[in-house]
Each structure stands twice: as structure tokens, then as C-alpha cells.
């Protein structure tokens, strides 16, 4: 499906967010930290920040799964 298309940018994104997070770790801990979830319907990667509405960006599904690892 779309996983092939999505995978490379996703890993980059994650790395970027992690480095950004580490840089600002001392000042603001995790306000802007995005965490990636899996959509319960279409299996897409859903990055969410604190306070954002819960839904899949792709299909609008309302249940997200936490991923086993964030590596």
C-alpha cells in the first residue's frame, strides 16, 4: 500500500524531531514533542503533538494505536 511511499520521509521526520527534542530537552521537556501512532484503520503513521485532536490524517479514523518502539 502506501507504506513504501511513506517510510523514508517518516524516518527522517522522526530523527529530526528527536534531535530537536534533545536540543530543547533542558528548557522545555516535551511540550512540542511529537509522538507517532498507528492508525487503527489504514495503518498510516500519525504524528501527534500534545492537545491535538485524535484522528488519522489520512482516513479520519478515531482509534490510534501506540507503537511498540519509537526507534
Amino acid at each position, binding site marked *: 500500500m502506501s507504506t513504501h511511499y511513506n517510510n523514508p520521509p517518516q524516518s527522517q521526520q522522526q530523527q529530526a524531531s528527536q534531535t530537536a527534542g534533545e536540543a530543547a530537552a533542558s528548557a522545555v*521537556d516535551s511540550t512540542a514533542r511529537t509522538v507517532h501512532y498507528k492508525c487503527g*484503520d489504514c495503518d498510516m503513521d500519525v504524528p501527534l503533538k500534545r492537545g491535538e485532536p*485524535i484522528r488519522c490524517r489520512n482516513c*479520519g479514523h478515531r*482509534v*490510534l494505536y*501506540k507503537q511498540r518502539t519509537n526507534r
Partner: protein
Amino acid sequence: MAPAASASGQPQWSTKFDTKRRHDLFTSPPKDKTAYPTLAAAVDPHIESFNHILSGQLEHGIKDIGTKIFLDGDPFAAPGAGEKRNRLSLRIQDVFVDKPVLPSSNKVALKNRNIYPSETRERHATYRGKMRARLEWRINNADWQEEVVDLGNIPIMLRSNRCHLAGLSPRDLVQAKEESEELGGYFIVNGIEKIIRMLQVGRRNYPMAIKRGAFTNRGPGYTPFGITIRSMRPDQTSQTNALHYLSDGNVNFRFSWRKAEYLVPVMMVLKALVETNDREIFEGLVGAAGSEGLTEKQFVTDRVELLLRTYKVYGLHSKAKTRAYLGSKFKIVLQLPADATDEEAGTEFLRKIVLPHLGCVAVTPAQDADKFRMLLFCIRKLYALVEGDCAVDNPDILQSHEILLGGQLYGMLLKERLEEWLNSFQLALREWGRKSAFKPFTSQDFQKDWASKILRRTQSNIGQAMEYFLSTGNLVSPTGLDLQQAAGFVVVAEKINFLRFLSHFRMVHRGAFFAELKTTSVRKLLPESWGFMCPVHTPDGSPCGLLNHFAHKCKLATSDLDVSMIPKLVAQLGVSSKSSASLDASVVVQLDGRVLGYCSPKEAKVIADTLRFWKVEGKMNVPLELEIGYVPNSNAGQYPGVYMFSQTSRMYRPVKYLPLDKLDYVGPFEQPYMSIACTDAEIVSGDSTHVEIDPTHILSILANQTPFSDFNQSPRNMYQCQMAKQTMGTPATSLRYRTDNKTYRLQTGQTPVVRAPLHNEYGLDNFPNGMNAVVAVISYTGYDMDDGMIINQSSLQRGFGHGTIYKTKVCDLEEGSRRNRSSKTVTKLFGFAPEGLVKAQSKETLDDDGFPRIGTMLRYGDPLAAWHSVTHDSATGDYINRDAQTQFFKYKEDEVAFVEEVRIIGSEDGTQPCQKLSIKLRVPRTPIIGDKFSSRHGQKGVMSQKWPSRDMPFSESGIQPDVIINPHAFPSRMTIGMFIESLAGKAGALHGIPQDSTPFRFDEQNTAVDYFGHQLMKAGYNYYGNEPMYSGITGQELHADIYIGVVYYQRLRHMVNDKFQVRTTGPINPTTGQPIKGRKKGGGIRVGEMERDALLAHGTAFLLQDRLMNCSDYMRAAICRSCGSFLSTTPIVSEYGRKKDKDLTMRCRRCAKLADGASNKADIWMDAQGTRYSGGEDVAIVAVPGVLKFLDVELASMGVRLKFQVEP
């Protein structure tokens, strides 16, 4: 044996393993239809009854509700003063129910707006669809105006025609995250699967002769004799009509309307129904003039004469006048509009209340005549009962029962809610009138306010009412729906294992009313239940006999048959409308509670036999499922006649009709008067008309799974049915998408070697429920005493019985608080407070987002999720945390668990931040000592030791048992089936074949032992299943040969880890100081009176003291020796010294004197209030139970003083 292909093209299931076929079904579920049609058929009645709501039942209901009329003007104004009042007519024209979709407030989901059941399960939500009604209204005789009104969301039954899963193939079901064999038939309410239980209720449209002592309480003259008929409207709501016999011969008609009872002279009802005269009634009750046996009918003629004479006092002489009289009495009761005439009201009374099964909408004169004839028949039966010509009908037998299906009840409730909604306009209109100075309905203001002020004030949230019903099972109803109970209609469809789940759909309850009954007669297993109710599958204990399960071939009618041709056929066969006086000369022929005519008993038999022949043959359009109950003439037995039933809710079951050698269906009403042979050998020529297709048809699905159950003592089979439902098995294959509160799962399930073909037919291999174990019957170590069992440790290490518990914890931030859902009113958010300190400890289990990491091990008190309070900043749209405090949901169980899944649940409209979290935890449960296991023969046992493999006994071929049980488990329990299973399993395992364990397959000539013994011999084993064995410890041969074989074992869900309860000290009750109750809270087990007696009798006084004092409310209390009081002692408080908790010196305030100058300085002491005393030194410290002091205080408060003598 080539697999026989069924009509559907699929090969039929046999007892074979069918490994390849099942594997193929697993890897590629069929695209067309299920491979297990029998399984689907077991649930069909639920689904079909729900489907029927919207394809007929509710339509009839709307017609029955009819048009409601409301008048304008001041209801309290002086009558006759104002002008003519305007009429507002309201009627429901149509009701629509949509499939579950997202609400329109959700603007984000574009492609697929359907809500599937799996999503509602995951979100702990309700699977519901929008309900709307087309409401039509007009004022006076203006044109009808229509409006579609939203009535809320009603829960939808899964796989019904309003569910997205309807008609999906197994493959599509898997795509929808369901089981490939998803059954449906239940509802999802708040994420919990609920099922409306089937209920046994009285048979519809059949007049029952009843003798009940309570009838005499209705007033003077009332006798215990009566007739009741549960008259069923086409919308499946019933109205019970009853006739009472009075001691003077009079008959009164009784009915309930909106939970109140009313009595009317039956003559009045008769005369209101049709234009009639006394002679017609007399001949209808006694028999035509000059008919046979009239002279012997002195009893009836006397009474009918009296009936006619006493009615004269009313002086009502025509149909119209009688109706007007009835109408004047019942106009208010029936909530008719104030401007209806009395005669209209009387007609409405007859329509709604009197035998509505013969016509309840737009009643024609012919229907009224039917009602008249039926009522006459009821009175005849009543007189026959009183005279002793017929016996009372037993209301506890299945013959007089039918089944109230879940969908029907749901439909009844919907109808009633709709009617209540229309009734609620009354209040809304009056409110509007009061506020607008009673403007007429014709005014402009009314048009303007109609939608905003009136329609909105009505009770239109039917969805909420239905959801309440399904989540609690409580019936909120102004009419009571003619049912005997108001609660307990809905149960949770527990998925402990598949068999448990399946049983819920075949379960039928007798009614909560009977559960409280002191007598046990309703619980008895009566022969009338044969073939319909399983004699084995009922729980023991309080619901025994009230909670039954259908035999697996018992079907339920969910729609009415087309019987339009029956009256004509019956007329051709010869019935007359007139009856004779004597039952020997003429008996009744009825169809669904409608009198078709009378004929002689001989003709009645011919009619019944001919119709049966036609119905099996399929000729003359007589439907096969028609029930033709021929009750022959007898010596004061059941009232004779031919009673035919064609409507829904009936039970029926397949048997073979011998004259045509074809399938016939029989129902519980006709069965007692039929001759059905159990086996072909039992057919009696000239008597038997039918033969059972298979003797196992009398057993339920579960009871059929017990191997060789005909060899067991019958209570053991009952126990097995219980235990199969408590087994830790495979609840579902879609476990990944389920969020049950608690589920059990057996990791290493196997298919049994010994099983019936039905095992495959019901697809039970998809949900394995146990393991095949090599079982030796020896007394080996002593650890197998008293139903203990020894399990080979190596077997356990290889996975025997390994199980898991999945628990789901829901963390809800807005539990019960916020109802107006908007992202601006969010007050709490998941995650750590942005500015706050985060402890490293909490980060061990939680991720950055405040959710637990998947795979984390949780112990007692570990945080499950973090949250903080926020306020919404509408300027930036952010959520701001001000207190920098992070709070936690904590894991509050003692056992170690692992986080399996974390679901982040969004709202339906997709605009809110996370407010709800669903965390699935996995608790590994490898078998430990104390866990319960059982074979399939009611032989449960507790694992008492894991025995090392090297010390297990072994046979000559080197086989070690997995399980050792004690031989003493057998003699008293007589579970011979288990021995045979052991033999069969052993032979099956040796030859690699599955063994058919269907009961009733062996007999005295062809014994099971011989059959399986020869198989064993062929494999080189002992014919009897015994083998020489060697001690695993010494290596010596055991003196006796050991019975060893393969038995299927189930692991039961009762595990010590959920049960053990120990304490020395712990939490106590603050008032008494005694330990609290309850395992969860760390409380103790009560040492009660009898336990105390036992300890006392054993002379174990110290043990007694330990239990009742030291481990309970042991207390050291100060007591004054001289005055003997606990309450007057007080500690002294030193003026200068430091506070020391220990070594408090106690004094008695009562014995002390207030200190004065004369007292010795050294003797003066001070209490905590600073009062100085001297003396009162004679105080001792004693050990007493804490409650003793409490008792002293309580008594003191009532002015009673306890005085203790303290010695020595």
C-alpha cells in the same frame, strides 16, 4: 466414506480432523458464504426477529398507535362556555433506522463514514444507528403536514439488516476485523456485548383453563376458576384477557390496561361486539337447540340462564347502546380525546382490549364476529372446567409456552416509546397553551412555535431509552408490556470461551418471577420439553430448571406463515358453524385463536391427519411449519379440539413423518398427542406416525460435545455443561480488536481426538477449548487424593495448559462529568505537565506522551497513564497547564502484568484531544499448584503437584502420563464415558484417527469397549486399555496394570491466583477494629459461629484466641479495678515532661477526687484538659476485644453502665 456433498455444494462436516480443509479456511476465508451454516443457524432467531422489527412489526405497531388527537383551549375552563375546540391530529407515518454512520458534526472523515462494530468495541462506545420518524399532523380537517423528526440513535443488533456486517462473507468479516464466523445477534453497548435473553412466555391465542386460589381474592363470589388468553396483536404486543367464574354462575371479563386491572361483565362485551340476542348467545354457549346431549347439560343451561338474567339490570338493549355504555366508562382510561363520542370510545375499547389478535386495526364486522365466537368458546371452556368436563391446563409445561425473542421485545419497546412520544405532545401542548394564553391551534403563533417550542419539548430521545434498556436490562414502561418482570431482560454475552458465548444465544429463561417462587414445580423437567429443551444443559443451583437451553435442532419461528388457505380447506373437510351441546358430538377447530367451526371428534382426527399429510407432502399450500395440535377427546383431560398455530415465536423441531418418509416439523403443542418413535427399532406399526431423525437431537450444542455422554451418570453431564462454559479456551480469533474487560486464552489448545461430528459442524476447532492428555488412573504419590491431580512437570514446561488473561483498563479523563462535548471545555489532558518535574520512576513505565510503553512490566502501584489539568486558551487555541502537577492513573492489582496494546481513543466528531485511553494488559498464567482442570465428564480436579518427569511412572513403550488421577474418582461418580473416552483416545492416537463419540451409537450387542478394544489390540496394546507400568522412582514394575489412555482436558478459569486469601494483620474496620471483608481489599475470611464451635470442640483454645483476638481486634485497654469501668480511665498528662507515647500512666477520673490544697503534692495528677485530681490509681491494663469497648460506649450513650470485675 467419501465426504457427502450437501445441497449448498460444500462438503458436509464429519468427525474427521479435516486439517487441510480447515487450514485452507483459515488462510483464505471463503468469499461467498460460511463453511459452518449450522453455527449461523443457531443464532438466526435473534437476527431474524430483529430484522422483522423494521420489516413489519413496527409498521403494525404504528397502525395500532393510530392517530392521536389533542384539543386546544384551557382544559380548566368552565365546560360548555367557549366555542368549539380545535383538534390537532398526530400520526406517525413511517419509521426509518439508518445503519451506524458518523454524525454530521464530523467533518474530517470523507471516504468511509461507516462505523463498524469493531470500532465501537475498541472505542468502548455503542453500536447504534439513527432513528427518524415521519410525523404527520393536521389541524381539524386541514391537509396533513409532515415532518421528519430525529429520534436519537438506537442500538443496532450485529449482523441484522441495519448492521454493516449483514450478509458479509467470512473474508469480508475478517476485513471488518471480526471473526470469520461472526455470529451477530447481540448488541454493543458501551463496548460491552449485550444480548436480549429469550424468555418463555405463555402461548399466544390459546385459552388456558386456570385454577388459581388467588382468584378468590378479587371479591365476594369469585371462585378459583378462570380462563386466560394471551391475545397477540400483529405488532407482537400482547393483551391478556381473562374470564372469571363467579360462584353464582356469572362470568366476568378481566383485563389490565396500563398496569391497572378492570372487570366487566362478559355479557356486556358479547353484546357490544355484535348485534345479537339472548337466544344466539344461549345457543352459542350451550349448543344448538335440539342438538345432541342438550338434556344432560343442565349445569350449563342453568348458568347461562342466570348469566342472561342478571345482565338485564343494565337495561342495555342494542350493540350501539352497549358500546356507548362501555365507552362512557373507559374513555378516560383509554386516553381518548375529550370530544370522542361514547360509542366511538366503546368501539375503541373493543378494538384495543378485547381479543385484539382477531382484529386490532380498522376492525371489520366479520372480525368482531370472530371475537364474539372466540369469547363464546372461552366461556364454554370455562363452564366445562367448572363442571369437570375438562382439566386445567398446566401453565408450567412447554406445551403452553412460546418464546419471546429479543427482537420482538425490542420492537415492543420501540412501539411503546413511539406511542409515549406522541402522548408527550399533550404536556408540550398544554405548556405552550399556558404560556400563550390558550391561543387556538389555528393561530399563526402555533405554526411559528410548532417546531421550536412544541416539538422540541416532546420526549423524542428514543435512542437513549433503548440504550438504557440494553445497558441495564430494566424495562421502563407505563404498560408493563404484559410481562411478568421489569428487569433482567438483558445479559452480558460473556466471551470466556466460544462455547460460553454460543450458549448465550441458545439460552432461554423462564422469567425472573419464577426465580423467587418457593415451589419447585416450575423447575421440573417435564416430558413435554422433549426435543425442545435440552434435559442436560441447565445450571445447578438457583437458576436450575429456569435457565434452559434449546436442543440443538430446535428451531424458532420468526415470521408468520401464510395460512390463508387453511379456513377453506377445513371447510371443505367439513366443519359447521354451529356446535352441539356435548363435547362427544362436536369439538372446535381453531387457527391461531380463531374459531373456524365445529365438527365431530372423528372428523377432527380426519382433519388433523389430512392436513398433516398435506403439509408434509407440500400440497394444497399447507406450510410445512404449521403446527396442528389435535387434542383428542378424553375423560376430563385437556379440552378437545384441533388447534392450529402458524405464527411467530413458536418452537418446532424436525422429525421424520413415516407415511411419506419425509421431513416434518412438530411443535410443543401437538407433540404430547403424537406418537414419535425414538429409534427405527421402536416404531410400532399402526401407532407411530413419526420417528426421530437422531436421538442426539434432544441435546443442546454443548451437551452434544460431551463424548459418550450416554455412558455417564446424568448429573455428571450437567456438570460438564457447566464446566465447558468456564473453560479457559479460545474466546475469539480477533482478540487483537477486542477490548473485553477480562478474557481468558489458552495458548496451547488442541482439537480433541475423541469428538462428535457436531464438533466440526459447529466449527469448534476454530476455538480450541482444551488439550489431549495422556491420563493414568493410579494412586501414585498421595498427592492425587480427593480430586487432586498430578501433572507431569515436563508437560507443563512444553506448554500444557498454558494460559493468559487479558484485561482492559480504561482511563477516562471525563468520566461521568462533561456531557456537552466541545474541544473548548476540555479540562484535562494526557501527558506530563509541560512545566512540571517528571520523576524518573514514572518514566520507567510511561513514554513521553504520558501513555504506557508497550511491553512494559507493571507492578502494583505503577503508573498507567499521566495526566494534568488544563484550561483552553481561546486566543491561541492551546491548552495551558497552570499548576505544573502531573497526576497518574495507577495499576492497582497485585499481579504482574504486561502492557499489550494501548489504544488512543478519539471522539466521534474527530475534533477533540485524547480524553480516553484503553490499555490492554496481559497477565501470564502458567498453571500453578491449585489451578483447576477437568475432563469432559464432570470430573474436575485441582493440580496438587507438579511431578518431575523423571519420577513419573512409565509404560513399556516408554509413555509417561501427562496427568495422574486417582481411581477413587470413579466408583461413586460412575463416569464410564470417561473410561471409554480414554480407550477411544488412546486407540485414536495410536492409529492417527479421530474417534466418533456421538452418544447412543453403541448397544448391548455392539459394545464400545469391544469396538475400541479391538482397535487397541490391532495397535499391539491390551484390549482393556491396561498396561504394565514401572515406578518412576524405583524403576520397579507396579503390581497392578494401570489404566492409561488419552483424555481431553480442559483448564478451568478458576485459578488460585484469583482466589487465595491470606492475612495476619491488615486493613481493619475503623469502628470495630475488626478485619474488613473482601479479598480485593486484603480482608480476612470470617471465622464464624460454626468455625468457632469446631475450634472449641477440638480444645484448641489458643488457636481460638489467635483467630478471634490477636488477629482480630486485640486491644489493650485501661480499666479501673475499683469501679470496673473502661470509660472513666484517662492518661495523665505531665505538666512539664515531654510527650511520650509509650508508658502512659492511666488513672481513673471517676475514683479520683478533684485536687485541693489538702492533698499531697505527689499524688496530684492532671488530665488532658488540665483538671487536677488526686487518687484513682487502681487502674490495670487488660487485653480485650476492641468491640467490647465499643459496646461499652454504645451502651453508655443509652444510659447503661457496664461494670467489670477485674481479678485477680
